[in-house]
Each structure stands twice: as structure tokens, then as C-alpha cells.
């Protein structure tokens, strides 16, 4: 079989930086091709070239054997290349109805005339939704009322209009829950059997293991592996970073269960949730996992003074902890690295050192006047200790790769003494090397503090945590120590459904 789309010997540089060096891949109909690489490895650049965002690259792209050259994203689109972006809401118009969103191209096509033909739009929408097996009871519902996963399926369905040659999905599961992910995979399976060629970009290795027929790895601008089914995550990791092993391993930081520092007593997080009882001890890193909706983030918000619990008590070092605001939580030594770095943590116009000092400006001040040297000295120290790769502390944060930005965000909260550190999905969109650095640094710095890591990804949790707790719809399902991990049991706890609760 001949590949439907090929990229051959693609090279691309930005000034002095060589982003891609002679990368070649072939994509076949009816195959899911996973494209993998650490942040900054060059995979986004490759995708952008295929989508027509860059004109000035070396090498060539062939579609069904024909050499093509794109001058704009529209060119690439016309040639049958479709991309569904990571940010789901960029793919839909939330204020428009389901039908309108599905038939959006129709609506925008000048050939369809000025009149708004409601019935026609509906019919077209159903035709477009059909290959994805999507149906809705109310097609007039605004998309803003739908779940993330429905929105995404709508944009995928729309991108399939006109029998595309290649469908590129960029981190499609990054804002989906596990259940929604399963649903997406079902649909992708269906598309594969219909003969669509899919390029699947993801950081989540277990998804790739599950889904991919082939996987291409880029590392440092070079193609470092082209694997075929069965794709093993160890092989992927080895190709991505070489030296790092993600399997749980013993680390020198032996868990000396210290005294209890943080204690939840009959804490009810949300109305209707069962009470939580939990003790976190000095010097331990606790991983809390569970699906979206399990109540992880809500618990973090309570500890961080952003929300009030329904009832119950929190004790920090034996004293009741009732932060009425974020700043009072910080004063009490509770720090939070929030989920969603770019929207909730980073100030894009600020330099690395300005981003670092933000929560603790008072300590860099005298009579409200900032002391620049003190600020820079601290920033230098943190950047060095965490191995942040940047052009110095005055570089804009946006010039750093995602993993390095995350290092800065974590460093922000480690530069001052804390008692409890909450990390909410700290490794989303972070390459494995940076993740490893961050975890290593945490372990090195930890004395008698408590670290609570919230993450849906089990691999991430298992890598970082001394103790794993599973939350399911507000209920604490159980816990495991890192030296006695039973994955099947954990997955069971995570995925137990409502009806099974009743029997438990």
C-alpha cells in the first residue's frame, strides 16, 4: 500500500535554531499514527509545516504521491488536511447551535446564498454527524451547553467533511476526562475502520499504546524512532529521552512517616459528597488521583481558601485551618500550583524573575518599594537549582518551552517556606525530562512539609507519590503505598460507577 501523505526530509530553522533536521514520515489510510516528542523536540513545528503555517522549509510533502507545497493553511485545507486543535473551544462557536456548528462551513459558504435555511442546515448537520455516529436529541441547543467531549466530537465531525486525506488531532484528550477519552477512542477506532488516516499527537503514552498502529518519535529535531504495533511506552520513552526510566523505582527518599501535619476530619467537600477523613504526614508526597468530577480540584480550592467546605474540619499542625482568602492560605503556609499553566499561572508579559516573585512581592520590598537585586538574586538561585533553561532571568516567560515554564511556576511556590504544597495537574503538557527534574527537586527539598499532588494520569502519580489515594465522586476509595502498588486495584477504584457503590 502506498502512503496517502508523506513528509520527506523536512528541515526547518528559526534563525540560528534548527528545529527540524531531515525528518521523514509516511501516513497511511486506515491507520492511527502517533506523533510523539518532548516539548521543544520539534513536533509542533512539523505539524505546522504540514498544515501550511510555514512556507520556508526544506524537504517535501507528497499527497498520494504528488508533490505539493503549501503557502497558507487554506492551501493545506484544500488539499485535504484537517487539524483539530488542542484547545477545544477554538473549534466551535459556543453561542451557536449544534446544527449550526456542524454545518458551519455550509453557513459560511457564499454559494449557499443569503437566506438562512433552517431545515437545510439541520439536514446537513445530521449528514455531517453521521460518520461519527453522533446524534443529539436537541440539535438547536447552543454548543456552550455541551460537555467538552461533545464539543470536540463536533469539531472532528466537521473536519471530516469532504473526505479529508489526513486528520491531525493535537493533544485531543488534554481536557477530557477518562470516560470522555474512552468515547473519543471508540470514535477514532470507527474512523480508522472507515479508512481515515489519523495523526495523533499526545504526551500520554498509555493512550498511544492503546490506540496507535504506528508511532513516530522526534527528538531534538531528528526522527528518533518509527515504531509499529504493538507500540510499547518504554520504547517511546527511550526514543524520546533515552536515559529516563518511568517505571516506579525505589528512590533514596525513603518514606519516614513523620508526625501528622494536615488532617481532614469529616470534611464534606461538595453537597452530597461523603465525608473525607485523611491524615497527611510530614515529609511525604501524596498523590491523589481520580476522574474529572471526583472532587480533587474542589478539595484543593478549599485548602487554598477559594471555597468553603460544606462541613467538617481541617487541621494543620493541630490548629484549625480556615483560610478565608487565598492570601490568608498563603500566609498559613499553604501553596498551590494551579492546573492549566498558561491560563492560571503564567503572566505572559512578565520575565522569568517577575513571574517568580509575584506571590511574595512583600518580602522583596521596603515601604512597598521593590528591591531589584534581592529579587534577581532569588530568581537566579531558583533558576539554577531547578535547571530552568532560559536566556537568563530577564527573558520573557513566553520564550521558554512548556516544561521550563512549569519549572518556573513550581519554583514560584518553592522559594519560600511552606507547610502544605498542592500541585494540581502539575505535569500537563510537560515533557518527561522537565517532569523528572521537578520531581527530583521536590524530593531533594522536602523536609517536614506535606506535598499533595492531584493528577488524573496514573503514570504521573506513580512516578511522584509515596502514597496514592483514589477519589471517586468525592469518596475516598482507598490508598496504596508506593512499594505495594496494585495497578488493577487502582484502576478499579478510579472507574467504579455509581451502581457499584450501592453494592459496596
Amino acid at each position: 500500500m502506498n502512503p496517502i501523505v508523506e513528509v520527506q526530509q523536512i528541515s526547518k530553522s528559526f534563525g540560528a535554531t534548527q528545529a527540524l533536521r531531515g525528518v521523514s514520515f509516511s501516513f497511511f489510510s486506515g491507520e492511527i499514527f502517533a506523533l510523539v516528542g518532548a516539548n521543544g523536540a520539534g513536533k509542533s513545528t512539523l505539524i505546522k509545516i504540514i498544515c501550511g503555517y510555514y512556507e520556508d522549509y526544506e524537504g517535501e510533502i507528497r499527497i498520494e504521491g504528488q508533490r505539493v507545497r503549501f503557502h497558507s493553511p487554506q492551501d493545506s485545507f484544500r488539499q485535504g488536511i484537517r487539524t483539530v486543535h488542542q484547545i477545544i473551544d477554538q473549534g466551535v462557536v459556543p453561542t451557536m447551535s449544534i446544527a449550526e456548528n456542524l454545518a458551519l462551513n455550509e453557513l459560511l459558504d457564499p454559494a449557499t446564498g443569503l437566506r438562512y435555511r433552517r431545515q437545510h442546515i439541520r439536514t446537513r448537520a445530521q449528514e455531517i454527524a453521521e460518520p461519527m455516529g453522533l446524534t443529539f436529541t436537541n440539535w438547536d441547543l447552543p454548543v456552550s451547553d455541551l460537555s467538552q467531549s461533545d464539543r470536540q466530537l463536533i469539531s472532528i465531525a466537521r473536519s471530516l467533511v469532504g473526505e479529508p486525506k489526513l486528520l491531525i488531532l493535537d493533544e485531543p484528550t488534554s481536557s477530557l476526562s477518562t470516560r470522555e477519552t474512552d468515547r473519543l477512542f471508540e470514535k477514532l477506532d470507527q474512523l480508522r475502520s472507515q479508512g481515515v488516516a489519523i495523526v495523533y499527537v499526545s504526551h500520554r503514552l498509555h493512550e498511544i499504546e492503546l490506540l496507535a498502529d504506528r508511532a513516530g518519535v522526534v527528538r531534538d529535531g531528528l526522527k528518533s524512532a518509527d515504531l509499529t504495533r504493538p507500540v510499547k511506552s518504554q520504547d517511546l520513552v527511550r526514543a524520546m529521552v533515552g536515559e529516563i526510566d518511568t517505571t516506579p523505582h525505589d528512590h533514596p527518599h525513603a518514606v519516614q512517616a513523620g508526625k501528622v501535619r494536615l488532617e481532614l476530619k469529616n470534611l464534606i467537600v461538595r453537597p452530597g459528597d461523603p465525608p473525607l477523613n485523611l491524615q497527611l504526614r510530614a515529609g511525604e508526597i501524596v498523590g491523589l488521583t481520580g476522574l474529572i468530577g471526583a472532587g480533587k480540584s474542589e478539595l484543593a480550592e478549599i485548602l487554598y481558601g477559594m471555597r468553603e467546605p460544606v462541613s467538617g474540619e481541617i487541621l494543620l499542625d493541630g490548629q484549625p485551618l480556615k483560610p478565608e482568602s487565598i492570601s490568608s492560605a498563603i500566609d498559613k503556609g499553604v501553596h498551590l500550583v494551579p492546573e492549566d499553566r498558561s491560563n492560571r499561572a503564567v503572566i505572559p508579559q512578565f520575565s522569568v524573575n517577575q513571574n517568580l516573585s509575584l506571590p511574595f512581592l512583600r518580602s522583596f520590598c521596603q515601604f512597598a518599594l521593590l528591591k531589584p537585586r534581592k529579587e534577581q538574586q532569588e530568581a537566579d538561585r531558583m533558576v539554577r537549582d531547578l535547571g530552568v533553561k532560559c536566556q537568563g532571568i530577564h527573558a520573557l516567560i513566553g520564550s521558554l518551552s512548556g516544561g521550563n515554564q512549569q519549572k518556573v511556576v513550581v519554583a514560584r511556590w518553592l522559594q519560600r517556606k511552606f507547610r502544605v504544597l498542592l500541585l494540581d495537574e502539575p505535569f500537563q503538557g510537560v515533557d518527561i525530562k522537565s517532569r523528572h527534574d521537578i520531581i527530583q527537586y521536590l524530593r531533594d527539598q522536602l523536609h517536614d512539609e506535606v506535598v499533595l499532588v492531584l493528577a488524573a494520569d496514573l503514570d504521573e502519580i506513580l512516578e511522584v507519590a509515596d502514597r496514592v489515594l483514589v477519589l471517586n465522586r468525592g469518596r475516598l476509595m482507598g490508598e496504596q503505598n508506593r512499594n505495594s502498588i496494585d495497578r488493577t486495584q487502582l484502576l478499579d477504584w478510579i472507574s467504579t460507577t455509581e451502581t457499584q457503590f450501592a453494592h459496596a
Partner: protein
Amino acid sequence: MPEPTKTEKGGTSTNWDAKQFAIRYGFLIVMAALYLMFSILEPAFLTWSNQFSILLGIAIYGILALGVTFTLVVDGLDLSIGSVAALSVMISSYCMVVLEQGAVISVIICLLLGALVGLLNGLLIVKMKIPDLLTTLGMMFLIQGLQLIPSAGRTISEGMLMEDGEEALGFFDPSFLYLGQGRLFGVIPIPVIVMLVIALLVYIVLDHTRWGRVMYAIGGNPEATRLAGAPVNLYRIMAYVISGTIASIGGVLLVARVGVGDITSGTGLLLDAVGAALIGFAVFGVRRPNPFGTLVGAIFIGVLLSGLTMLSLPYYTQDFIKGGVLVLSLMFTFALAKRS
């Protein structure tokens, strides 16, 4: 310099030179060139007295522009500053001429009113979540109407006849008029000094205190700033309070300069002030509101208008020129800097 780091989006630091230089200093170079050109074409341009008359000409809206810079920094915009200044003109005249009050109390009342309007703006924006442009636009109309009410829509001057037919007995205190008409050492106009002092204070607050840093952070990413523990809403309200207060200072200086509570005195102030602050984005290519840029922007307009007027440019083309400069500098700031 450390080795360039690779970013996925691309862009390196090696082909700086020309473009970076243009972005950074282009605006200042254009300004210097204009200055040089006017000086050569019209010798009177370069006299000391003309320098001060340029500065005096921009002082009022320069002050307003420095105030509105705060709201721009927190990613808002205060459109009510022109009418707040006008309100301050009318209220201070009313206090002194009609109510026969002293200068100090009149000025204090004006400043408090300005702060109050700012507080109201801030509360509407923060608590009721009305978009800033709409809030301050509404407030602008409200105050434009309000300022007409005390004097029943008439200009207030000393000895004016009041509604009941009696003559107003109050007067503008000479020490008050000094604020607008006086000159330090007989040379430097007082409003210019006030503007420079305010500029210095604004610069210190925005660039060298944690308050300013937090305000810039809010402008960059309010959610991240909130999660870093800053009282974001309080800061946003304060930005509008400062903007309103500074606008009323501008109004006070305006009455003191003309010695009449002119009903039309606020016209044009808003656009001049916002224009100067926006032109300020281009200075040093920083692409964000900054007090130095605002001051330079105001001076730039002043230099341009003074020079062109001396070269017998008709007065009615002034607004056209100002608008052109504003649009050009915005193009310069956003288009050129984005491409880098």
C-alpha cells in the same frame, strides 16, 4: 549573553539589530527628527518660552493621560476622565464663586468627587461585572450631564448673575489662580511642574513598587494574579479611583488657568489624554502602557502641533493630525513588534 534557547514557536535572538532597534527607538528618533526639523525651519520654535508653552499646552491632558495609564495597566480603560475633569471645573467654580468657599476646601471637594466617581466606576466594573468601556462610557454621559446642573447650564464667572437675579459674590482666590497661571521662578508654569511631579510619582508607583507590579500582573493575567494571592478586585478599583482623582486634579488646574468655570472646558480632553497614553505604548517598543511613554506621547503631540502651527498649519486640522499620529503609532507598535 547565554546561548539562545530553542523555542517551539521559533524566533531567535540573533537577527536583532535593525528591526529591534527600530521597534525600540524608532518613535524617539522620529520625535527627535521632527524637533530638529521644526528648529531649522522656524527659529522661534527653539526658544525657551516656546518650550514652556508647548509643555503648558499639554499639561492638563498630560495629567489626565497619566491617570488613565493606571486603568490601561490593569487592562481596562477609563473613558470618563474628560468629563470628570469638566465636573471638577464646574464644581470648583461653583464652590468658590457661588458658594463663596475658599480655595482649599473647593479643591478638596473636587478631588474627593473625582475619587468617588472612580470608586463608582470600579465597583460597577468589579462587582456588577459591567465591561469597563461600557461602565465608563455610561459614567461619562452621566457626569457630562451632572456638571451642567449646579449652574443651570451656564458658565460660571466672577460676578455672574444667578438664577434669582442676584450677583454672585464669591471669587477665585489669587492663590488658586496661581496654580494655573503662576510660574516657578517666573519661568516654569506651575501646571507643568504638577504634571512632572505626577509623572514621577506614577513612574515610581508603577515601576518600582509592588502595587505597580501587581497592577501589571493583573493586566497580563488576572486569574494567575488572583491565584498568587493578590486582591485583584481591590487593585482594579484602586486603578479607577486613581484615574478619577488625577482627572479632577487636571480639572482644577484648568479652572485655575482660565479663571472661569467654562461649561465646554472638558471637550477634547478625553481623546487627547487617551491618545497620549496609547502613543506611549510605542515608546521603547514596550507595547504596554507605561508612564514614561505616556509623558513622551503627550509631549510628542505638543511638539508636533506647536511646530506645525508655527509653520501656519490651520487650527482645524489639529485633530486630524493627532488622530493620524495615534493610528500610525499604534500600527507601529502592534504590527512591527508582532513580526519580530
